[in-house]
């Protein structure tokens, strides 16, 4: 098979051709074995089997756009922001590339979620594909890690603060928290070492892990064959499954390429077009304030795909965060990892697994619910609240008008709303006088209500209390309190 021996035996041209033919036949043979491996017949429901390959398409696209971005992006805490400004506003195709990378990440996370749901719903993780699922869970974790580290590389004030927010959670691991934080920040504080570490994680560690685990994942998919569409009554029994599956392929198997693969290609094409389309129309997230922890007038928010977790952490019972932030992610990952080994046999169809079906619906509904809460963030003070205008107050002088001014300056409007002006943390006070007496109002103002209403006993001076009270007592809608 060596080129030289072929040339010696058959002459230069014929020998080279022989050598090339043998080599390409080898490669083509390997490729054909993978491409033409038989898959179960699927027909139209095979459209549900495309999310894994679609995720991979998004990932490969991330690698391409990521490499391109890295030719301009400078991973230095001092200059990364400037290089990003250059990419966004000056570099040829720069804003589009940033947009493709952002929307590619978004689609990848969405699609990996769809893929996991499809595999769970059809119980494709059961024997003999348990390890495929477990490797897939690692791929899910690495994908989320890519999403988070990528967000910090945006390295505006929000990006810098997201390293603090990560530290605040990791620091809570008892005993080792401080070491973990020092390790990821590259020192006792955010410094030039911090961005270098997040960059290293984003472009070397997690991509390498993704590629290695993805290769293994694909190897296992081909090794065990694509799972057949489940049907009621056909249970998985480890003793007989393999023989049954091989017989199925012998009798009804179709070559993966192109009988099944064409659907993957169509969806992959649409994914690419969607990412480019979103990048061209909506574009990437605009850069925020320059990267400095001293830029404190920021309201750090995670990328949209983590908004639900952001909301979750706001809505858990106060005081539980030290347990939730540390244990919840680990418990969740552990449950996902052991799932296929606990339920490796039995019915696969979602029709016969009502609890699994309910679990998925519940998880999706929970995430959507928290996601919507995170978008509204009712708990966040409204720093941009507008003072209640005179038309609503009703008067321009006297204690009621003064009270309306205090309602704004004393911070009530960060959380309370009157006639549509102000925040939504606390109760709407448009008609508060209908339900609270003046005495009760004073009590609430002075003692607060745990856990969300501060006391203003040390804030209100002179006749400020009576002015504020006058304003609040004037908030009547004329309807008597409705009590059951």
């Amino acid at each position, binding site marked *: 098979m060596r080129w030289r021996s072929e040339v010696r035996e058959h002459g230069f041209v014929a020998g080279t051709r022989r050598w090339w033919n043998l080599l390409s036949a080898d490669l083509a043979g390997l490729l054909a074995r*993978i491409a033409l*491996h038989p898959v179960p017949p699927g027909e139209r429901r095979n459209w549900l089997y495309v999310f894994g390959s679609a995720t991979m398409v998004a990932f490969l696209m991330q690698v391409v756009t990521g490499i391109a971005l890295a030719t301009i992006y400078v991973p*230095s*805490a*001092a200059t990364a922001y400037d290089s990003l400004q250059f990419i966004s506003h000056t570099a040829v195709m720069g804003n589009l590339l940033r947009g493709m990378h952002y929307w590619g990440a978004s689609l990848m996370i969405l699609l990996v979620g769809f893929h996991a749901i499809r595999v769970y719903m059809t119980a494709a993780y059961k024997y003999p594909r348990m390890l495929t699922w477990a490797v897939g869970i690692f791929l899910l974790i690495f994908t989320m890690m890519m999403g988070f580290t990528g967000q910090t590389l945006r390295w505006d004030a929000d990006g810098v*603060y997201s390293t*603090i*927010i990560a*530290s605040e959670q990791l*620091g809570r*691991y*008892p005993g080792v928290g*401080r*070491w973990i*934080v*020092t*390790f990821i*920040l*590259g*020192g*006792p*504080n*955010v*410094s*030039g*070492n911090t961005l270098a570490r997040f960059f290293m994680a984003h472009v070397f560690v997690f991509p390498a892990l993704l590629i290695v685990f993805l290769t293994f994942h694909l190897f296992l998919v*081909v*090794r065990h064959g694509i799972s057949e569409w489940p049907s009621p009554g056909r249970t998985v029994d480890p003793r007989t499954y393999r023989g049954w599956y091989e017989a199925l392929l012998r009798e009804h198997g179709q070559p993966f390429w192109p009988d099944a693969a064409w659907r993957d290609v169509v969806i992959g094409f649409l994914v690419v077009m969607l990412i480019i389309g979103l990048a061209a129309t909506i574009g990437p997230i605009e850069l925020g304030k320059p*990267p*400095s*922890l*001293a830029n*404190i*007038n*920021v*309201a*750090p*928010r995670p990328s949209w795909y983590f908004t639900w977790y*952001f909301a979750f*952490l*706001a809505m858990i019972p*106060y*005081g539980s*965060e030290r347990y939730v932030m540390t244990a919840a992610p680990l418990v969740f990952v552990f449950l996902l990892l052991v799932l296929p080994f606990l339920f490796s046999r039995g019915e696969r169809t979602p029709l016969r697994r009502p609890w699994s079906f309910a679990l998925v619906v519940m998880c999706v509904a929970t995430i959507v619910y928290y996601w919507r809460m995170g978008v509204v963030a009712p*708990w*966040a*003070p409204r*720093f941009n609240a507008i003072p209640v205008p005179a038309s609503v107050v009703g008067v321009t002088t006297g204690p009621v008008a003064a009270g309306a001014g205090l309602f704004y*300056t004393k*911070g009530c409007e*960060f959380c309370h709303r009157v006639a549509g002006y102000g925040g939504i*943390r606390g109760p709407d006070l448009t008609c508060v006088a209908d339900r609270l007496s003046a005495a009760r109002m004073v009590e609430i103002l002075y003692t*607060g209500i745990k*856990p*969300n*209403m*501060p*006391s203003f006993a*040390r*804030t209100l001076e002179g006749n400020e209390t009576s002015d504020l009270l006058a304003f609040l007592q004037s908030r009547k809608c004329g309807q008597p309190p409705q009590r059951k």
Partner: protein
Amino acid sequence: MFAPPRLPQAPPPPNPARRRFLERVSIGLASLAAIAIAIPTGWFLLGPLLRYVPAAWRPVGKPGDFPEGQTVRVAFPDVPQLAWSGDAGVTAAWLHHAKSGEFIAYAVYCTHLGCPVRWEPSAKLFLCPCHGGVYYADGTVAAGPPPRPLPRYPVRVRNGQVEIRTTRLPIAGVA
């Protein structure tokens, strides 16, 4: 698929002892090589844990710059001070000049998730933009999810300068 390649001829007569020896040599050498790479590399990566970064007093202004009874934002370069940190290495604190003349420096990091709290002077509250944590003027929790009061930095007045002592990020489990 992925069938093992057929051996071209019958294997040589087995010699279990020799095979076991070669196996041990191979695994042993590979492990030694891996350890030889892992020790300096791991040490390097764990450098931030092993290297002691001394605390530093950072001047933030003259005492007269801070009106009594007010709380203002100050900024100072944090430790370790690296040339390539840029402004990312600059930390803020809320400095309160008490009526008694003493200074108190509060960290800006909310004790819930680390978002920067804002001082609202007329409301006399620190408010967190993330999850609605609220603190009184003395840093104690007024409302919302924060589990602890705002951390404080040590402050002193030296050589006509208010100085803040900084060591490590004042967040949960770390400070």
